[in-house]
């Protein structure tokens, strides 16, 4: 058997898998926190806060997601590279969202007609679209 390969390994030299086993109470605690956050989200959605509603809903959802990822998915005591993959993926999804919104939010700012669906002069709706 060849000597032990030296790429990233978390365990000692006997090659067996030693996982960090968390106590059951931790998992149940995380679950209760998640349920509390859900109730909070629903509660806050009933209060009319304008644009803040979306921001708060996303923040709470991100907090819940963070709890699930770090504890339930063991990202905390796992190989650092997995955390990099997860965060990197969110970054790329963010790039996709940001650049697409950069287009859809700013159409017609240089010339009002571009992207508009109604011709103000004649009141004619752009053909080919909704009736």
């Amino acid at each position, binding site marked *: 058997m*060849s*000597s*032990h*390969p*030296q*790429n*990233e390994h978390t365990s000692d030299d006997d090659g067996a898998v030693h996982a960090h086993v968390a106590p059951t109470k931790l998992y149940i605690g995380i679950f209760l926190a998640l349920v509390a956050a859900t109730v909070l989200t629903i509660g806050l959605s009933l209060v009319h806060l304008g644009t803040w509603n979306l921001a708060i809903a996303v923040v709470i959802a991100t907090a819940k997601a963070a709890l699930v990822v770090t504890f339930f998915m063991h990202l905390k005591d796992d190989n650092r*590279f997995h955390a990099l993959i997860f965060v*990197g*993926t969110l970054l*790329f999804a963010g*790039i*996709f969202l940001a*650049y*697409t919104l*950069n*287009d*859809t*939010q*700013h*159409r*017609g*700012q*240089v010339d009002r007609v*571009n*992207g508009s669906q109604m011709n103000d002069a004649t009141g004619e709706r752009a053909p*080919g*679209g*909704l009736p």
Partner: protein
Amino acid sequence: MATEAQNASAAPVDAAHATTDRNFFQERSGIKSWLVTLDHKRIGLMYLVAVVLSFLVGGLFALLIRIELLSAGRTIMDADTYNRVFTLHGAVMVFLFIIPSIPAALGNFLLPIVLGAKDVAFPRLNLASFYLYVVGAVLALASMIIGSVDTGWTFYTPYSSNTDVGSKNAVIWMTGAVFVLGFSSILTGVNFITTIHKMRAPGQDWKRLPLFVWATYATSVIQVLATPVLAITLLLLIMERGFGLGIFDPRLGGDPVLFQHFFWFYSHPAVYIMILPGMGIVSEIIATFSRREIFGYMFVAMSSVAIALLGFLVWGHHMFTSGQSEYSTMVFSALTFLVAIPSGVKVLNWVATLYKGQITLSAPMLYALGFIVLFSIGGLTGLFLGTLSVDIYLHDTYFVVAHFHYVMVGGTVCAFFGGLHYWWPKMTGKLYDERLAKVAFWIFFIGFNVTFLSQFVLGSRGAPRRSWDYLPQFEELHRFSSVGAFIIGIGILLMVIVFVRSLVSGAKAPPNPWGSAALEWQTTSPPPVENFASTPVITRGPYDYHLATEGELYAGFPEDFEPSKKA
């Protein structure tokens, strides 16, 4: 790179030069040993056969297009047939050939060997990826048979959501095929990244990885991160066409420009999936046939990763005239220029490697140098298309067609042919006829330039692309370009003949016919099932010719022998 036996610094272990007699062909035989194999080498060869077949089919469509464009008006087919032929040429070449070709065919065969591993990390997943490719190819074939698609390989809505030229749901079959092919590409990506991280031989740290592995790594990152967006885009297209969702089709309240965003978010990184492995092969070939290490190894390696990451920021340069907002047009144009820099760094480092090298102009080296010439033209013409006002003029004209053929055919296909020649002895254990291979290269090279240099001028004079008919003023250049296309056809035909003759009557290839210092040449040709007699311990980089011992660089031929003389 040394096997245990040859390692000067390690304790002298008396194992002969990797003499395991049974190579992976002889290990098991019969059709079942191929269809349910888990050996990455067999899966690689199966991919190679499938990919080359797709290339020939796609090439046939290309010749049909060029015959039709020989003269204005109808030459051999009407407009609808032409629209279907150019769509199939695009779809078959992109999804069935150029994306899987180097990573799945050559990559599958070589990655474990150059890493010193026994196999890829997930062999069953590798076979599943191949069968997904076969299912995708069958679906694409079904779409062709029931009347095929005439939307262009880009499937732009609303044309793709309500065309019924050909058959009512040919679009659904073809987009379903590409959906399945996408997953084959993702699974290959997942497999390769895990293999590169976890299966490297002892001593093989990141600075000693061959540049082909760096390129495959960057490609796999793109495959895993970009292809899923294509999958969701095509799923949305199929659902909208089937059930009417109202997201891309303006008649239902959708927005076609949004589809273009979704499509190009995948398709621009996809062009880097196509070119990066080609660059990896060129690095390997240039190093071997200059007998010295690549100039600026770390810069070339990091430029592969830089291309992969920057490739995700620039997709909007396909849509400068599409009606997207002026702000995003500005941002995409600026970022497009950033992507040009890593490619430039690579080309300059390759040329610098040739300085003070010991260069032998074998067939693979010709393809690598051909890659540098053609890819430079392709890259430089990208500057025209990145500059906003010039792109407004040149967009959707033959200039763009010429640009991406220079980068894709002049780049990836040229590198694929180079890689095929370079690793042919290792994969099949047979030598090919060097002289005939060089003749085939020159025919391909000349034919390619004749075909596509003329299309640059066609485009700059304002000839729109994807046109079955054209105005009389463009006829002369179109005829010139069509003639070039046939010369390419002859060149490729000659190359196929060279390989078939090599398979039938080629001489037995020694383990290291090119005298290269890379790891894959330190095992037998073709290698045993587990690639090496015993897992090698790596003590030097893949291009350290000055550290390699005489035994490692021994080319396995009698002293005064030249590979080109050996048929």
